[in-house]
């Protein structure tokens, strides 16, 4: 993508386009983590699930020639790993944060192992919808090339926000996450609800991973993800466990993530690595700004271990 003709104006435009492109995986992972955390558990292993989803999606797309089957397969791989996390954490005395760390290492290791044959070959990738066809400027058109998965993620955020308020299963998940005692008294099966919520969260994280390998950057390599899954966990805290806020937060993180490449494309190459660290710095700064040592965060599920203060 060249931005010479627009000069410095190309930077905000590229950041906007990048926010959508880079933000889509954040959106899916954070919505998945939102479901899991609403049920009272935290899955730090979404980073591993994301990488596994990216590998599975690419591999299946390569084998079948249909990228959408790849997305489906990635979701399946994510559900399987999420289920593993959910079932292990249902055992007494097993800590969800520790299992998440283990899953992060296991998921990446397994993806690197199984993905070795797919580093070289080219797999069919997902198509894009051009929302910028009205513009004569190629830069504007490039920025508004939107992947259907982004729109699906937006619809999902709206659906989840509605479902958490107005459907039976939404209320059950929230009750299990806010007070296990109350949910038990009402006769709900806490471990089953949490396990299913973690499996669903894993499935969405898997889809987020398939976006990485099948659309942007659109290939499979071992350096494909560097902490997007983990940042999405922080993003959920920032979004106060609200699916719609997750959508805006994902765009913000995506914008931060595309700052480095955008500046590089207008010729700013000094400090390239530092600009690439921007998303991590933004995540950390946001966590510092939103967390507090004195009170539990507003909107936090009551059973969540990560927000309980020591």
């Amino acid at each position: 993508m060249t931005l010479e003709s627009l000069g410095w104006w190309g930077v905000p435009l590229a950041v906007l386009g990048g926010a959508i492109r880079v933000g889509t995986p954040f959106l899916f992972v954070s919505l998945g983590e939102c479901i899991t955390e609403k049920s009272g558990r935290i899955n730090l292993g979404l980073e591993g699930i994301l990488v596994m989803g990216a590998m599975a999606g690419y591999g299946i797309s390569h084998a079948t020639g249909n990228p959408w089957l790849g997305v489906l397969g990635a979701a399946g791989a994510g559900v399987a790993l999420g289920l593993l996390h959910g079932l292990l954490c249902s055992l007494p005395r097993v800590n969800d944060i520790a299992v998440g760390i283990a899953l992060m290492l296991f998921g990446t290791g397994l993806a690197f192992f199984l993905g070795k044959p797919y580093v070289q070959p080219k797999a069919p990738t997902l198509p894009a919808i051009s929302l910028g066809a009205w513009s004569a400027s190629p830069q504007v058109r490039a920025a508004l090339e939107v992947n259907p998965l982004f729109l699906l993620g937006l619809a999902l955020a709206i659906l989840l926000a509605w479902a958490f308020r107005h459907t039976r299963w939404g209320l059950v998940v929230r009750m299990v996450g806010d007070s296990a005692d109350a949910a038990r008294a009402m006769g709900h099966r806490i471990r089953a609800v949490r396990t299913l919520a973690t499996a669903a969260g894993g499935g969405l994280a898997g889809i987020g991973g398939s976006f990485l390998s099948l659309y942007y950057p659109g290939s499979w390599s071992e350096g494909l993800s560097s902490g997007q899954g983990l940042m999405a966990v922080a993003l959920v805290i920032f979004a106060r466990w609200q699916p719609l806020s997750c959508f805006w937060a994902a765009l913000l993180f995506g914008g931060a993530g595309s700052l480095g490449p955008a500046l590089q494309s207008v010729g700013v190459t000094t400090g390239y690595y530092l600009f690439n660290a921007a998303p991590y710095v933004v995540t950390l700064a946001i966590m510092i700004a939103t967390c507090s040592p004195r009170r539990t965060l507003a909107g936090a599920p009551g059973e969540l271990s990560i927000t309980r203060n020591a």
Partner: protein
Amino acid sequence: MTARAASVRRAAEALTIPIGALAAALALFGVFMAALQHNPLEVYALIYRGAFASAFSWQNTLARAAPLILTALCVALPAQAGLMVIGGEGALVLGGLAAAVTGRLLAGAPTGTVIPAMAAAGMLAGALWIMLAGTLRQYRGVNETISSLLLTYIAIALFNHLVEGPLRDPASLNKPSTAPIGEASMLGMLPGLDVHWGLAYGLVACLAAYVLVRHTTHGFAVRIVGGNAQAARLAGLPVNALVLVTCALGGAAAGLAGMVEVAAVHGSANASLIAGYGYAGILVAFIARQSPLAIVPVAVLVGGISASGGMLQRRLDLPDATVLVLQGLAFVVVLASETMYGRLNPFRSPRA
């Protein structure tokens, strides 16, 4: 029932369950290999040969165990105070960079001053880095697991920026590196062994950590904080200071690992330093159940598994990530085995 019998029973349980879990992980790995048309027995034999069968493989294993011991302490020490810090990789990378720069600045000075100065610089860099995660948790309520991993990504970006920019040795063409510290400042080999001094650093650090945690009032206070910070605060313990000191010690250990890698293996700071020792150290600490003494044998075992990776690659044409799969499986199974404590009949006290 005597207290002694109970403690023997507990010790036997603490040994049996992790060993059983590791055996189960190996068995699962065998099933995985068999599913991919590899003979599991052949794979086991190759792992053993690559890790422990010859003097050469032992050297390779112990050279990998040295940094693992130190990065595992970066998890195990904060764990005593109830923190789950997983940012050892960042502390290692920055510690290695600080050591390389110090070694370069002092090039030509007597070895007796250069090596301690490099070690001090590495430990200081690591300590400050992990203390940052501790500070954010104590004073801002930021979860230390997430912040320490974010800090790792930031540390690696900072490292790459400095090594490929301001600190780059113009002579390093293909692989950007800092200027070499020079042959004279390198860590030598342990007498009688072909393993560098880093292993001794690790052993001493583990011993010191054990004494600190188990046999000093500071360690006792830290463990109270880890057990119940609220109670510790009510009892008048300086909770924040205890947590920060513990984080600093853990970070110093990981920073020292970076110094060892620079001064004993690479000779300068470059991308080879980012080798995943920080992440494997998390696994070591969890298998050792955060006990400083148990870290040593576990690090040798995990170091051996990673040392056998090359052999698996050459003989069976397996990808280099094979050892990551085995390590990940071991991690998952060991955590699942936590649920077995207090549930196995032979280890139960007769009364219960």
